Each structure stands twice: as C-alpha cells, then as structure tokens.
C-alpha cells in the first residue's frame, strides 16, 4: 500500500500500541497474577510459583471441560471439512439458481448474530426430540464453521484452470482418478489452513455453545458456571495456557495460510 511519511507512521504506531495494550493488557495481567500473589494492596514479589498451574492441572472440572472443547473442535472440523469440500465441489460443478440459494443458506449462520443460530438450533433439537449433549454442540459448531471451509476450498477450486481437469479426463482418467491425482494435491494446503482456522473459531465460540449444550461441560459452560460461584486462581493459569496455545496455532496457520499478497 502507500508509503507513509514518518510522522504519520509514528502516530499510527501510537494508536496501534494503544490498541495492543487494550487487547493484551488484561491478558498479561492475568498471566502475571498466575505467577504472583496479591496480598492486601501490594504485590508479593517473592511469591513467584507455579502453584496456580498445579491447581489447574488438578482441577478435574476444568480439565474435563478443556478436553470436551477440544473433542468438539476436532469433530466439528472433521465434519465441516468433509461437508464443506462436498459443497464446494457441488457449487463449482455448474451454474444454477439452486446453487446460489444453497450457498446463501451456508452463509446464514455466519451472517446472523450467533444467538439466533443457537436459538434456532435449540428449538430444532427440542422439536425433533434430540437431547442436548456434546453431539448437539458439535452440530452447532459445524454449522457455524462450515462457511469458512466452504469458502477456502471453493476459492482454491476456482483458482485451478479448468483445463487441468479436462486434460486429465482427456488422457483417460476417470473422475475419481482425476480427483485423486489432480485435484486433491492442490487442495491439501487449502484444507489444512481451513482446518486450523475452523478449529480456532470453534474454540472461541461461546454463544452457540452455551445455548445448545447439555450436561457434559465444555470450557465456556464450565466458566459460565464458575461465574456464579466465583473464580479460582487457577483461571489465571488457564489464561496463560490458552494464550500460549493460540499463539502456537497462529504460527502454525501462518505456514499454511497464503497471505493475500506474496511477501514483498
């Protein structure tokens, strides 16, 4: 983009710094207090310890909740990869009114406030007599991240010259062989980046989860419940762990997700 004069860059950097402070300030404070304790109004600098982390590991409720959240994430990602890819191929296979409508439907959960998606599913499960459980949470997350996988895979498909598929068929390959040898290898990187983004989105997702969840707890559910009872110090440790995990995930995603323009 534009090359800015020094003064402008400095000013923008200031604002950006402030924003970064807003975003990370609370997180860093929590991290800080996972290591140190507060007594009356002063920080006890000699209280550095990993106690909070120890407590976290022993907090079965939280650990189970994290586990469930990861399971839900994994399942939602797997489902959305399969269905999203299927839908992308279907859309790419031709032009029709029905396809446009279908695409719009796929986009809906992302375009509406999550509370609506969650409530719609809640009502549906009730009317269809489906008991709320981790399964319903998985369905809710899948519906939500589907559009992401769909868009990424579709963009990849559309970037492939149609002559590649024609060439493969021309040389005698069946449709399955064409998929296996020509299309699938091109899709791998797209699928990986879609999977990572979908997983991250699923992990962050709270509103839908709280609405369609059953008794088995996921992380949002657990913390939601704790809010009434009060937080325990190991939550600070949890903040640190999650931040570390998210950073690792982002770095991983960076290797696979193509930036909008090549690195200059």
């Amino acid at each position, binding site marked *: 983009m534009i090359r800015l004069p020094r003064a402008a860059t400095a000013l923008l950097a200031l604002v950006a710094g402030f924003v970064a402070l807003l*975003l990370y300030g609370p997180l860093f404070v*929590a991290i800080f207090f996972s290591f140190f304790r507060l007594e009356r109004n002063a920080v006890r600098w000699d209280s550095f310890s990993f106690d909070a982390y120890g407590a976290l590991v022993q907090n079965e409720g939280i650990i189970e909740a994290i586990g469930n959240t990861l399971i839900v994430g994994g399942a939602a990602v797997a489902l959305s990869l399969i269905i999203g890819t299927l839908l992308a191929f279907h859309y*790419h296979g031709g032009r029709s009114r029905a396809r446009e409508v279908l695409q719009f439907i796929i986009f809906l959960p992302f375009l509406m406030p999550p509370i609506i998606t969650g409530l719609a599913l809640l009502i549906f499960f009730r009317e269809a007599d489906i008991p709320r459980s981790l399964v319903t949470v998985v369905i809710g997350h899948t519906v939500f991240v589907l559009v992401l996988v769909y868009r990424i895979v579709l963009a990849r498909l559309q970037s492939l010259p149609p002559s590649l598929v024609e060439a493969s068929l021309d040389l005698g390959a069946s449709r399955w062989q064409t998929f296996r040898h020509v299309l699938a290898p091109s899709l791998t990187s797209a699928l990986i980046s879609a999977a990572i983004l979908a997983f991250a989105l699923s992990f962050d997702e709270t509103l839908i989860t709280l609405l369609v969840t059953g008794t088995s707890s996921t992380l949002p559910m657990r913390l939601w419940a704790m809010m009434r009872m009060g937080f325990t110090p190991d939550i600070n440790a949890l*903040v640190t762990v999650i931040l570390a995990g998210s950073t690792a995930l*982002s770095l991983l995603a960076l290797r696979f997700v193509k930036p909008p323009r090549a690195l200059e």
Partner: protein
Amino acid sequence: MPSGRAVTTETVGVDRRGGAAVDPYRLVVTILAYALPIVFILVPLAMFLVQSFYHVEDGRIVRDLTLVNYERFFTAAAFLPVFVRTCALALGVAAITVALAYPVAFLLASLEGRRKYALTLVFVIPLLMSYIIKIYAIRSILGGNGFLNRILLYLGVIDQPVTFLIFNLNAVLLTLSVILLPFAILPIFVALERIPRNILDASADLGASSWRTFRSIIWPLGLQGTVIGASFTFMLALGDFVTPQMVGGTSGFTFGRIIYSQFGFAFNWPFGAALSVVLLVVVMIAIVLAGRLSRPGHPS
C-alpha cells in the same frame, strides 16, 4: 469459447439426446450436499420463526399462531426501551471499534514483508482465544479490587476505587469494544490491502498530497471493508448475552440477556423467539443500510 466454463456434465461429453445422463453417484452426492445445510440451517430457522408465533399458557406452549408476543414486545414497558438502549450500545461499540481499528489496519497495510505479517498476527491471535476467557481477564481488571483501580490508586490519579467501570453498561461497552476490536481490524485490513499500488502512485504523480490521496482514493476504496467491520461488530454486540451477564451486573441489562432468560428462568420460548426475530430484523436492516452506504462509486 464461453467464459466462466466450469466442469459440467457437458465437458464430460454426456449424451444429450438420451441415454443415462444422470450418474447415480453424482445424484447421491448432490442429495447429501443439499440435505445437510437444509436440515440443520434452514429447518431450524423456519422452526424458530414459527415458534415466535406461538405463545405460552400455564407453563405450556400453545401451538396456535398469534401475534401476542410481538404485541407484548412493543407495548410492555420493560422491553422496547431496553432494546433501544442495546441498539445504542451496539452502535457505540461499532463506532469505537472501527475508530480504533482503522488506524491499526492502515498501519498494517502500509507495512511490508515480514513485519507486516508478524504484526498482523499480533492483532489476530486474540481472536483465537476462548471468548469467555477474554471477558474474565477484562473483568478482573475493571473491578473495584481490579488491577486498573490499583494502578490508578497507586499512581495517585484517584484516591478512591472507581466503581463506574464495572457491573454496568459502561463495563459492557468497554468490554465488548475490546473483545470485538480484532473483528473490525480484519475486514478493514483486507480492503485496504486490495488497493492497487499503482493507483496511489498515479495519484501522487498527478500532484495530490497525502491527505488528498487518502480522502479521495484510499478512504472510498476502503469503505466497503470499513462498513463490513462496523456491521459485523454491531451485529455481534447486539446479540451478545455473555458479556452483559459477566460484567453488566444488574444495571447492565441488555436485550441479549432478556432473550437468554426467556430460554432459562422465564421459560417462554415463543416470546424469546419473537424477541430474537426483532433482533434479526434490525440486524438485517443495518446490514442492508450499510451495504448501500458503501456501494456508490465502489469499483468492485
């Protein structure tokens, strides 16, 4: 050769004049493809709309179509004012986030190479963390015993803990703004990124100052992204019920919480559905208006 040629049945040389033109494998795949989104997206939505026309009597849902819920929303004292206040809150959140996000996105777009992507990452990572964790972290700062107060006390800026930052609408406003910031940064960044370098060079070549270039070229071309960012944060803020519950206290009551309680204690699902429909309509209107705003003169 027609453009936009996709791989259709045509390109596989299927006989148009008879013979098996329908491949059973393809049929099954097509049916599956349509079934899943329809069953789990369209049907729930339809049911949800229908539910808003039912009503509750003696703790049971009566399945007769009625407008009673909508009437109640508009006439009863408790709901419309809260809704309007929540809309104002959401607008406030959208305004704050976009105002802060634009400079950040602009800065990111003006960088090159590794610095650009490293810095973008910094602003994107918070998106990947659990939502509720972020609220917790912010809450612990804002409270009477929270970090913010301690710092201010310590620095002597105030001599009494400030309580107007927690358990009220201000807290909700601040918290939502901070949490939704990255959602605003991304679309603006993407839109600014797309501006071709040569257009900006042309502007400078023709003698425009940096400010002029910004006003006449960068701003309009980036407008669509800005509007997307604003409408996205508006939508997310409007329907949120977690943040108000965690930092709103009793005075920080938003529409989202009212809706949520219909599915909890109040146990009036049809009414909750009706309230949500109102929410949805407002969001749709906002998105359409926003779309109009960014449309004129936009090249794409």
